[in-house]
């Protein structure tokens, strides 16, 4: 089939500009590089940042996987996969191991990533200081001077209010002892996976027009206080009802018939792989 679009939707100049921003982002880990975010056939705030990074990177030999909050089959993930598939003809997959390029919204897969894989995260608000400082000019200056008291202040306020750090997602991290970065709204459970990750992690914010990155094997530390150390969500005692997995990030669901609550792997492809392996045995 002859496509009416250039390969990977964008013209070559656009792809080059996004790649250049990505390279700069990799060179300065955690630093938000501004880029000329394009109009996309999906609305801003629906993953356009991640999508643009993906389209600029994807090659003929790539295998693409798209995750939406852990699920491969949600509308958003399917739409993005279809768009990239139609404009590039690359193979798409749901298996984390087979993918070379993984675009994800709000999760890092349970299966450990490898050096030959790239993870692209979609970011709604790339600025970790935005909730204390509304002005972009000021936050840029704060980053330049490495003044991150605002990020700590947000955590302090949570402790004052709730007795503990209560970030449900997007818990700020310090990258390579310099820039404080919003890891995108991944659960705290996934923050440690960023530290010394084998795979390159690129983060794209389409509406806010920023790209930033965590290069492979880079130190990523979640912000905390001496007497309130960083903690991931407690998943002890929880078991996936479908595959029996423990120590993964769960969805809590309600059985409509019995009214009981139960847990299930949030990462659907991980869960499916475990069930298939069980069936093969």
């Amino acid at each position: 089939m002859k496509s009416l679009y250039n390969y990977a939707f964008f013209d070559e100049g656009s792809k080059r500009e996004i790649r250049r921003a990505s390279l700069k982002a990799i060179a300065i880990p955690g630093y938000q590089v501004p880029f000329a975010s394009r109009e996309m056939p999906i609305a801003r705030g629906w993953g356009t940042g991640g999508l643009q990074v993906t389209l600029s990177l994807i090659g003929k030999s790539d295998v693409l996987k798209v995750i939406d909050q852990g699920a491969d089959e949600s509308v958003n993930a399917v739409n993005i996969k279809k768009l990239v598939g139609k404009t590039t003809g690359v193979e798409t997959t749901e298996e984390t191991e087979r993918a070379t390029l993984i675009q994800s919204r709000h999760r890092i897969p349970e299966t450990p990533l490898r050096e030959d894989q790239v993870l692209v995260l979609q970011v709604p608000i790339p600025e970790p200081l935005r909730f204390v400082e509304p002005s972009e000019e000021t936050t840029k200056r704060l980053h330049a001077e490495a003044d991150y008291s605002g990020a700590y202040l947000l955590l302090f306020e949570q402790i004052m209010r709730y007795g503990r750090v209560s970030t449900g997602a997007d818990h700020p991290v310090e990258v390579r002892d310099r820039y404080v970065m919003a890891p995108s709204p991944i659960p705290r459970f996934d923050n440690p996976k960023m530290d010394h990750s084998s795979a390159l992690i690129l983060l794209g914010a389409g509406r806010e027009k920023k790209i930033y990155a965590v290069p492979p094997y880079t130190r990523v530390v979640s912000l905390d206080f001496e007497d309130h150390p960083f903690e991931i969500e407690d998943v002890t005692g929880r078991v996936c009802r479908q595959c029996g997995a423990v120590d993964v990030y769960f969805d809590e669901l309600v059985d409509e018939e019995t009214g009981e609550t139960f847990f299930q792997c949030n990462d659907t492809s991980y869960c499916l792989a475990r069930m298939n392996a069980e069936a093969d045995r």
Partner: protein
Amino acid sequence: MNKIVLQVKELGKRFGEGCPRCSGGDPTALERNYCPACGTVYALSDVSLDLFESEVLGIVGESGSGKSTVLNCLYFDLEPSGGEAFIAQYKNGNESIFSGSGQTRRYIRNHVFGKVYQNPVLGLKMKFSSLANIAEKMIAAGNRNVGAMENRARELLTHVSIPHHRMKEAPANFSGGMQQRVQIAKALSNNPPILLLDEVTTGLDLSVQARVLDLVKQIQRELSISMLLVSHDLGVVRMLADRTIVMLNGRVVERGLTDQILEDPQHPYTQELVYSLL
């Protein structure tokens, strides 16, 4: 003789480019502090002052005379257009604090100075709890221990008579006087040697005013902090300040012991100011 903790030399702040007519520093070229030829405003010209250890130095003058601009420049809220300021904590007082980088300025702001703004909105984060507001300055100074910061914040808030059960509340819910007291507690959090007070009592009712003044006096006596006190209220200055300088049109027109200035003013403007006192 006490030692000097802050020395300001020929501080200037200009809004506008200046022109050949007005930039020579000749006061007669200006209409008050405004150049009629090019529209430049000279908010501060040649302001020099010394602040001694545990002394309260009052700055009085009419509105628009540049009182607050002095404090804003010292606290790095405004970039001065000329002049120098020296403190013992920065390069042993050998280099002007205005020559420092953004980071060293931030350090000086967080460790050496505490500031109470006339408008609490500028000095506080209105939506954050009072405890967090006070912790902010300690966090900025590098403290990373929640327990220690909370204890210190509670101690300070008790000191400024904020009731225990309201400490977790946001200053947005407080009265003006309470907000001002939270600001004072915040300014004191890192035991700064120098406190900059900008019209601390303006707009407060008399009983609250008295309590805030009492607090300032008490802090000064107990902690021997040096203070720059800006006010247009001569009563406040008479009560608190050891020495006073009088500003007019961005210039210092008179300086001396507070009693001396209030009882025997020399400059015509000071005379007018003192005799306008009801």
